[in-house]
């Protein structure tokens, strides 16, 4: 799993981000000001940096300017939604930009996209006897290929990306089928059933009362 640097001066937001990262299984380092962030960057290797722009002492832009050859991709987090700021961020080499207040799921999705873009294609997810190769869109159980429809694979991918987080049927429909899909939430139940059976994940994909489904992975 990835190692992230979270630079955010607001303690509540910092904790919110890291607690969610922990659910997915990412490791992280927290910095509350620009100076600490620079120090961590000099001493450690990170896969991704979440960087707030408004920071005490040294702001996010200054950090990016000082570390022109940032060793890791950067997602900027800010309350300032101005075009000039966004352009400045991208010019300085940011990979993405997210504005407060943000949805946790959106942040996680963006983190995933940036991580995958910078990955060398060996991303695979292993749980028990099941191995999911995301890049190749293949699933192995007991090292044997499991036949899957596109829809099933996409549903599986969404569950893996948001592991340990419950997703409502509507959310699953939206993420795996797309916004314009006019299906019923029953469709989700049917596909979840199939996934459970094919992968033997009856106890891994939990039904959360009144919420939806959650792929549970022990940290």
């Amino acid at each position, binding site marked *: 799993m990835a190692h992230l640097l979270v630079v955010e*001066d*607001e*303690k*509540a*937001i910092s*904790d*919110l981000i890291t*607690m*969610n990262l922990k*659910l997915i299984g990412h490791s992280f380092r927290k910095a*509350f*000001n620009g100076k600490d962030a620079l120090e961590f960057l000099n001493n450690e290797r990170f896969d991704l940096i979440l960087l707030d722009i*408004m*920071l*005490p002492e040294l702001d996010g832009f200054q950090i990016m300017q000082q570390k022109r050859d940032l060793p890791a991709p950067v997602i900027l987090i800010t*309350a300032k939604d101005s075009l000039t700021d966004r352009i400045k961020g991208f010019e300085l080499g940011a990979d993405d930009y997210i504005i*407060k*207040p*943000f*949805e*946790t799921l959106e942040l996680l999705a963006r983190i995933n996209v940036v991580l995958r873009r910078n990955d060398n294609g060996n991303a695979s997810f292993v749980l028990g006897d099941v191995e999911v190769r995301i890049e190749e869109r293949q699933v192995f159980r007991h090292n044997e290929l499991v036949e899957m429809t596109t829809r099933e694979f996409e549903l599986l991918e969404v569950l893996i990306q948001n592991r*340990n*987080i*419950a*997703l409502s049927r509507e959310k699953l429909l939206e993420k795996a089928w797309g916004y314009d899909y006019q299906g019923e939430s029953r469709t989700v139940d049917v596909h979840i059933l199939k996934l459970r059976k094919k992968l033997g994940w009856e106890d891994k994909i*939990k039904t*959360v009362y009144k*919420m939806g489904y*959650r792929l*549970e992975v022990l940290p």
Partner: protein
Amino acid sequence: MKFWHKVLLIVLIIFIATLDISIFTIMQKNWALNLSWEIERASSEQALIANNIYENLNSVRSRGSMLNEDVYYDVVRSYDNYYSKQGIALEMWKDNRRVFPRSGEMDSAMPAFTSRSIERNGNHIIQIAKYLPSPDDDLLLLYERNINSLFAVQQDLNHFFVIINLAMGLCLMVLLYCAIRHLTKPLLMLSETTKQIADGNYVKRVALKSKDEFGELADNFNRMAEAVERHVTELLHMAEEKQRLADNLAHELRTPLTGMKGFADYLMTANCNEEERLIAAGYIQSETLRLNQLANKLLEISDLKHESCPLKPVSIEHLFDAVTNIEEPQLRLANQTLITNRSVSAVMGDFDLLVSFLVNCIDNAIHASGENDTIVLSAYEENHTAVLEVRDEGCGMSMEQTKNAFEAFYRSDKSRSREHGGAGLGLSLCKHIAESLDAKLNLYSKMNEGTKIQIILQLSNNFTVTP
């Protein structure tokens, strides 16, 4: 039609009409005088001729000769011959018959007038007809005189009058144009300036330095423009402040809301343990408290904005006791000491507002100071006024920060004051309190040396104070 057009036209018409009427009247009078003078002259000449004829006839009679028509004819002809060179013609009538001249057309009737002026064949003529004295009073002598020259002179005068009239009219028009344009220039300037102001250029003024009504108007106009400009800038500033307040408020609301929503989502969806659940719930609680604090402060400020507070005597002793009680837990937590000094016993103000003021100032002082630091709260007299002062030896602020300190949502150090739950409204509230107490507010601060804030109130001489 423009104003100057109207003035020009009216003045021109009145002037020319008056001029013409007076000149016309004078000419008319002159003509009448000339004519009557001419008639008088003709009349006396006729009398002279008639007298001479009478004398001649008398001498003929005295010689014993008979007077007949031939005699009359001869006598009159001799005079007629003589006078014809002067443009004078004579006729002699007797008993309704013309005796002289005999030739030519015969007038049917004897002239029945004594004097007249007629026009005949394009010639202007004066005729005088009078009888000779007796005994020749049956003889009527008609005297005719050509007065064409008089008419020619009059004609000349008329032409001259018309030409003068036209020339003067033109001259007057040019002069009037220049004069009126010059006089109405201030109006043009005023109009130009008004247009510019109407287009939104509120700093424009009329540059007119004269002492007439226009100057007065320009002065008043400039005064009005100034008032308008002042009001507009005031409104603009107010709108800007409101906008800034709204922007800041939105930003200020966003951060706790992000946290609350995020942690609520986390509680609902995450596969987490008891400890993590408690942390999330704790954040939701603390962020809610923060929002609540923000709402309370905003309400306080908004309440203050509407009313000016009546001033009552406030006992400093009671005031300081109340403030110390409120601040004690915080001071103990921060391990700081509050020292109070009071050399006045009462001030004019409002107890609750002053408590709120001092608590806000001391809160700021606590946050700015480090452990084991001292904060001094004092009340003393200076220049016949009472000064309440909160002084700390904390981190202080730069000039720039001091300047902005009273603005709502302004934080000198963002991360530090957020830790204490502030929203940057404390000093803004203090400013509004001072305003509603009509008190002056002073803020002195130096980086790394400390901050001193003062509110200047009236001294109260009334010692029967109630808290």
